[in-house]
């Protein structure tokens, strides 16, 4: 039952902050119903990993998840978090140690963003200054400017921003475990992709144990270190890494979920950080335009990317624009400038590339710092190396029980 190494792990190997979760013969039977909603489920969720629960609606995936923080009390079986059997501990105290994110974020409409994030710290009796510091730290972490968003009310935020605050709120007391119940189900596809990228970026730093319920298999492939494919009664049909499931679906039920285009989905498995980024001509606000022009010409490109003093990309400028006097004196941020993170998949990168007018997409790291660009060639190279790698022995099928 040793932990099997995840195949797409990168060099990032921070301390794992999460804790292992073990479900042992967990059953939920509602009175008056013949079949159990969750029938004798046993599984181990390794510390610091994202485990996706995927299955058709009504399969019991949400019920299974809600038994972990005992929003639903199991009829029988045990739940262990870390080394502690939590099946009988005080549920309110247990839940303060488990972050919980639901669809639509579930922010309190009558609380400000700061008050929403402060809910669990307040329950834990933190002092005011510590709470205020934590709120700002978390807003920063989810890419919302604290001074600008702290005192807003949820209705003054977009769906994506609300969902970010929801994540910040769940992380407030730094819980080792995070439960996410279709958190990105209610936002538009572009926002969803961005939120997914952010979650992956956060997870690189945080290394929480995350249980994530979704009905979207592509989301599961993108986010999951492991995927548990569940059938009615929360029966675990297959529990493995995305690579292994894509390569060898256990049966027709799983094949149905994987769907067509498994080869293209491999693009979803390769992260931007796993490929070598290209350089682009880079300049700064207030920088030397002439230098930028010669740099771009060296690359054989007609565009240079302008960064602000914090290395955050602002906009692409053409050579002609750069040649204008004072071109770099003040540069406003292009609201349409799309960026992706190292945790994004090549699939996302390709998507952005096809919709942007530059044929390249900018990659940014923490705090939106510029890291490099991806070009079509980058993806072609990655595809070719994927093709040769897939003939190598795949990962083992060991299903933890």
């Amino acid at each position, binding site marked *: 039952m040793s932990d099997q190494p995840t195949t797409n792990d990168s060099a990032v190997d921070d301390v794992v902050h999460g804790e292992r979760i073990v479900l042992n013969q967990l059953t939920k039977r509602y009175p008056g119903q013949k079949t159990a909603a969750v029938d004798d489920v046993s599984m181990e969720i390794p510390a610091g990993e994202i485990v996706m629960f995927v299955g058709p609606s009504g399969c019991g995936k949400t019920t299974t998840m809600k038994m972990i923080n005992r929003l639903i009390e199991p009829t029988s079986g045990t739940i262990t978090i870390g080394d502690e059997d939590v099946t009988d501990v005080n549920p309110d105290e247990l839940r*303060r140690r488990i972050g*919980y994110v639901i669809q639509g974020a579930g922010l309190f409409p009558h609380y400000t963003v700061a008050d929403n994030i402060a809910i669990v710290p307040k329950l834990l009796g933190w002092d005011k200054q510590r709470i205020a510091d934590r709120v700002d730290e978390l807003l920063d972490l989810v890419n919302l400017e604290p001074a600008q968003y702290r005192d807003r009310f949820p209705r003054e935020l977009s769906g994506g921003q609300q969902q970010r605050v929801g994540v910040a709120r769940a992380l407030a007391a730094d819980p080792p475990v995070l439960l996410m119940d279709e958190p990105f189900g209610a936002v538009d596809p572009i926002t969803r992709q961005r939120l997914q990228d952010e979650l992956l970026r956060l997870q690189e730093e945080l290394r929480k144990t995350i249980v994530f319920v979704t009905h979207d298999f592509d989301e599961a492939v993108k986010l999951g270190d492991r995927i548990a494919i569940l059938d009615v009664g929360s029966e675990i049909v297959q529990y493995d890494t995305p690579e292994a499931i894509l390569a060898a679906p256990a049966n027709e039920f799983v094949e149905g979920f994987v769907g067509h285009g498994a080869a293209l989905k491999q693009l979803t498995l390769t992260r931007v950080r796993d490929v070598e980024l290209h350089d682009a001509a880079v300049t700064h606000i207030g920088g030397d335009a002439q230098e930028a022009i010669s740099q771009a010409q060296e690359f054989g490109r007609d565009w240079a990317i302008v960064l602000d003093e914090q290395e955050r990309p602002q906009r692409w400028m053409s050579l002609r624009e750069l040649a204008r006097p004072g071109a770099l004196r003040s540069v406003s941020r292009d609201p349409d400038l799309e960026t992706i993170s190292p945790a994004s998949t090549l699939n996302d990168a390709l998507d952005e590339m096809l919709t942007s007018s530059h044929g390249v997409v900018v990659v940014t790291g923490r705090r939106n710092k510029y890291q490099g660009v991806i070009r079509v060639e980058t993806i072609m190279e990655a595809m070719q190396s994927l093709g040769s790698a897939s003939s190598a022995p795949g990962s083992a099928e060991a299903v933890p029980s």
Partner: protein
Amino acid sequence: MNFWEFIQDRWSLLWFQGYQHLSMVVQSLLIATVVALLIAVLTYRSSMWTGIAEAGAAVGLTIPSFALFGLFIALIANGVVLSVLVLAFYGSLPIVRNAVVGLRRVDPTLVESARGMGMGRMSTLWRLELPMAWPVILTGIRVSAQMLMGIGAIAAYASGPGLGSFIFSGLSRLGGANSTNLAWAGILGVVVLAIALDVMLNIIGRLTTSRGIRV
């Protein structure tokens, strides 16, 4: 003596009875609110009890207040206590109805997210459900306040305080000197007080409702 001269003549008495009237209504309203919220909090989680509470409130409102005052005189001799009790009874009815509706309308996913963060039942009620239902509850309180202003005038029948004494003494000797002036002064006083109280409640409502849910 015309109406304005009459008002000037009886100003101090009118002022005193007006104050008594307002004080009686406000006290009854406070009791009514507390009682109504207790009833609502105890019943809103169960459909059956909610139904009973709502039906009870609807039936209660149909009881003629005059009759209730009359019946209670035999039981409680003190006019002030009697008046406040009867008014609190009537006042609680619209508040119960609105509070139950308001509490039941709170989005269940919000309640679940509160519970999921480790907020207990009481904490969820106090910090989430009541504040969210508050605008609806407050509407009930305002309806109740208007109603009590009117019913409060009947308290004079049970020798209670308030502007009712003007109206009753006016009506009891219709045709006599100043009888209509007395009645009109009472009525007008009640209306003015009702408007003043409503404005006050409106201000309280704005101050106590979070900007995040204010319409």
